[in-house]
């Protein structure tokens, strides 16, 4: 069974820890599209945190397209959109450019940057029907 672990004493807020881990699990296909996640109430009880903390994490992931929240069906993992959202993709690429530039500014070499990007892409795994290392 897929699990999630938070550190209550970590600097990073709990809602970000929750969102980060769910994002990673979905990207790595450990949570397949359509998988039902615990309700806000159940996850808050299990973690022993405020309901708003989990609601905030779920809303963030819904806005990013990772989750679908419906009243009766509950919270499920969203399938990638059938059509490419060019505007959203362009915005994310802009953010990546800024992040790469900032990393370069910290003193990282091109080789180191390539290594980091490769490692992160490898960590995402390969989705069925996609060839590893291509677009």
């Amino acid at each position: 069974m897929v699990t999630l672990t938070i550190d209550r004493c970590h600097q990073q807020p709990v809602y970000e820890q929750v969102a980060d881990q769910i994002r990673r699990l979905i990207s790595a296909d450990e949570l397949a599209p359509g998988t039902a996640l615990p309700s806000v109430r159940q996850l808050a009880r299990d973690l022993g945190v405020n309901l708003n903390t989990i609601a905030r994490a779920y809303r963030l992931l819904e806005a990013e397209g990772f989750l679908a929240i419906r009243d009766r069906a509950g919270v499920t993992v969203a399938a990638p959109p059938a059509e490419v959202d060019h505007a959203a993709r362009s915005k994310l690429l802009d953010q990546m450019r800024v992040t790469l530039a900032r990393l370069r500014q910290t003193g990282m070499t091109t080789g180191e940057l390539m290594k980091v990007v490769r490692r992160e892409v490898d960590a995402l795994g390969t989705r069925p029907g996609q060839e590893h290392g291509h677009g």
Partner: protein
Amino acid sequence: MGEAIVVNAFLTLRVFLVGGLLVALPRVTRKGLLLGAYVGEEVADGEPARQLVRSWDRGCLIVMAISLMVGYGISLAGRPVTGNLTGTAVLLLAALGLYVRHYSMARRLTPPESVRRVELVTVPLVAPARTGERLAKTALAICVALSLGTVVYATLSYRVMPPLVPDAFGGVGGSAELSPKSVITVLFVPTLNLVLSPFFALMGLLTAGAKRSVRGGSGGGSAEAQESFRTLMANVFSGTALFICAVLTVLSAHIVRTGLGRTGFLWAVFALSGAMLLFMVASLIWILKAHGQGGALRESATAEMPLTGGLADNAHWILGMFYVDRDDPSIMVEKRFGIGYSLNYGNRSALVIVGTFALLILGLGALGLFGIVL
């Protein structure tokens, strides 16, 4: 003499059931917990922990022997019922004292790093199965409908009932005595049904949504074990609620019918009560034997897979029995020592539920007593 034998047999059965359960509990509890304290998975496997459990076993046997001797002694002096009650009271009080002593000893075995607030919490990220919740909701609906039905039936029959009515199993437990007709004597059992059976169904519903305590690391199958255990416990509550409802519904109907001079069916009340006790005892013994407390027997546990969250957090447990965490929205949490789930006494909803139930039962008890005295 015959009465003394039956009463003593009940006392003996009770002492062996409770004593046997107390001896069994440390063996079916989740690894890392020792007599209500979280001591860590490594310490729980060590020799000091085993010595403490042996001391607990000896203590339980002594408590059982003392309570039987007290009960039999008073019974031999010609007061079997008092002997039964006193023996039971001695059993419970002595067991409590024994537990508190061993809990304190277990806390001393807790390594310092386990005392600090547990920072890591691991939880299953899959929506739970809803079978327990569905059964509990169905049981709640049935209990409310049937108990309301008994209240309506008793109310409608009130006018045509004679001035003297049977007050079977009223506030003081008198059986089939005749008392002057009053709202209290006629409506006591139906109202008790309206309070008691929905409460048990509600506990089933809360258990179905209780906090899940899974292990860190690879988890050792604890999430699945916990899920099955939680569903089973919720089902036991729902089943018990339905039995209570059936017993009290039949008893209410019996009281009204005999009051109206028709044939009663007290035999059905006894049969259902026996079936209910059998269901509760058998299902709890089976759950403990096959699953262990919290699914302990169906998970692997090592130091790399420690308990996390509230269950492992000694700071939030009073005597290892009462969980109090105001920041935790959980109403029900897994017990550290015992069977099933306990309330989070720091949660306002939990306090409202317990407070309301206690007030209703105390109020009904007082009214019942008042009705019988009249």
